[in-house]
């Protein structure tokens, strides 16, 4: 499998802020410089650029080209991945296959968005016609439906969900790059008593949109070795599914595309859920984490709460989870937010977790969730398994 011949040689991330006073391209420039400094690569060696989706970039149909232009990157492969919160991990997968196919040798994957400061989104989708007239707020409302239905089918255990919220918040306190507003410890009772947004979704279930950027530098293992870079991280399994069960009119909203994307990633990696050393699931709402435990096979469908009760999720626990705080407690960098948990996984495997370093760095699992469809769960699901030093 060609993806396994590639190496992440560096990661970078900016401070996540409530609203950026710096342009999205300046954040991109900061990521580029950090990656060059850390890896010793010259700018001219980067011959591929893959961007995540970006609400700031959304108004620009030449987003990847103009970003390459502003950063003065002369590249042989240039694209934006537009599967929402899945796009950072999707970008990494595409970088690996582009390198393996010989289209380019070294790719900057850049995840930058300043949605709070400058959102240029103008959705052309079903929402304007079928949801806006009924007053839907967007994702919180959709997760209200998902949560109500989950409660009906399996029962909703608020204390279990609160345990996840607390674990992530404790990690954000240890993460200097997390949004300052969110770096205050919370309790399970704080979670349960936080105000309702779209029943039963609460404030502390939800992400706060922020501004920030992150990125990875990817090259072939051979090239990394030639450059003397011994500290690398390699993707060993990947699964991606968009519009899961598209050909069915009625679907179980608690059954998601992670079921198939996860099975594919585990098979490719030759691993099972019990082998996973740390997990970095996409977290736009707390319940999404529980649904992913179920769909990825950490437990059976409907038994997520029991699984949560049985495990500890901080960096010293038996299953460290979103050890940088996740998006919910570090802040969601718009559509680049999927980069936060991805970069945290890479950071941990590089052994640079500092105060929150996990002990077991054998591997890490990262996921993405992207887009909210009509009366379903989400449009895209991705799962990637990473290992250090191939």
């Amino acid at each position, binding site marked *: 499998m060609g993806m396994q011949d590639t190496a992440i040689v560096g990661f970078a991330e900016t401070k996540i802020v409530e609203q950026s006073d710096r342009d999205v391209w300046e954040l991109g420039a900061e990521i580029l410089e950090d990656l060059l400094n850390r890896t010793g690569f010259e700018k001219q060696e980067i011959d591929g650029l893959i961007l995540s989706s970006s609400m700031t970039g959304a108004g620009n149909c030449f987003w990847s080209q103009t970003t390459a232009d502003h950063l003065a990157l002369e590249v042989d492969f240039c694209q934006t991945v537009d599967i929402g919160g899945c796009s950072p991990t999707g970008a990494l997968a595409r970088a690996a296959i582009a390198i393996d196919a010989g289209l380019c040798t070294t790719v900057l994957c850049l995840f930058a968005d300043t949605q709070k400061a400058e959102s240029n989104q103008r959705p052309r989708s079903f929402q304007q016609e079928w949801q806006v*007239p*009924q007053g839907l707020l967007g994702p919180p409302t959709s997760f209200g439906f998902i949560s109500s239905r989950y409660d009906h089918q399996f029962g909703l255990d608020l204390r279990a969900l609160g345990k996840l919220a607390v674990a992530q918040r404790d990690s954000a306190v240890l993460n200097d790059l997390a949004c300052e507003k969110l770096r205050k410890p919370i309790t399970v009772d704080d979670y349960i008593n936080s105000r*309702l947004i779209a029943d039963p979704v609460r404030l502390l279930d939800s992400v706060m949109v922020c501004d920030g950027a992150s990125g990875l530098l990817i090259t072939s293992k051979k090239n990394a070795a030639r450059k003397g870079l011994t500290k690398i991280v390699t993707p060993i399994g990947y699964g991606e599914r968009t519009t899961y069960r598209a050909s069915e009119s009625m679907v179980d909203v608690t059954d998601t595309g992670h079921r198939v994307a996860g099975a594919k990633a585990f098979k490719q990696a030759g691993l099972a859920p019990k082998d996973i050393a740390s997990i970095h699931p996409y977290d736009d709402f707390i319940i999404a984490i529980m649904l992913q435990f179920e769909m990825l096979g950490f437990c059976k469908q409907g038994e997520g709460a029991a699984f949560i009760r049985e495990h500890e999720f901080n960096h010293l626990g038996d299953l460290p989870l979103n050890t940088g705080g996740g998006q919910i407690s570090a802040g969601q960098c718009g559509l680049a937010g999927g980069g936060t948990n991805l970069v945290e996984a890479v950071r941990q495997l590089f052994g640079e977790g500092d105060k929150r370093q996990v002990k077991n760095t054998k591997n890490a699992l990262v996921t993405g969730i992207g887009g909210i469809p009509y009366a379903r769960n989400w449009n895209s699901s991705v799962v990637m398994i990473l290992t250090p030093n191939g």
Partner: protein
Amino acid sequence: MNTINDTLNIVRDPPKWRSFSKPFWDATREKKLIIQYDKEVGKYQFFPRPTSIYTGKKSNLEWHEVKGHGEVYSFTIARRARPPFQGHEPFFIAVVKLPENVNVMGNMVNCSLEQMKIGLKVKPYWAPLSNGTHLLMFEPE
């Protein structure tokens, strides 16, 4: 305000339809609910799409009128909203399962907080829009 708002006093812009959804909106002028049906597989779909979700053949699609009686599949209480809904919270948004095996979203009128539950039997409630079409909402049967 702890009572639930039926949203009927909210002035909403009529949505823009697409070439393939126009028949739906035209039918709402007479408070008729029509949904797409794939005649090859004998199955319905909602919301209106440019092709059959089952076969990928748009020529398989027909519009069939249905009663619109169904039951609540899931719901949420919107406690925060954007204009013109802002300030009119809380209100219900329900996902209603029709017997034709499709889910349809809509606000709920004439329904109390105590009454609302998954499985509640509902029927259509057509709210007038300024262009003569109607918005499909639901009320308890």
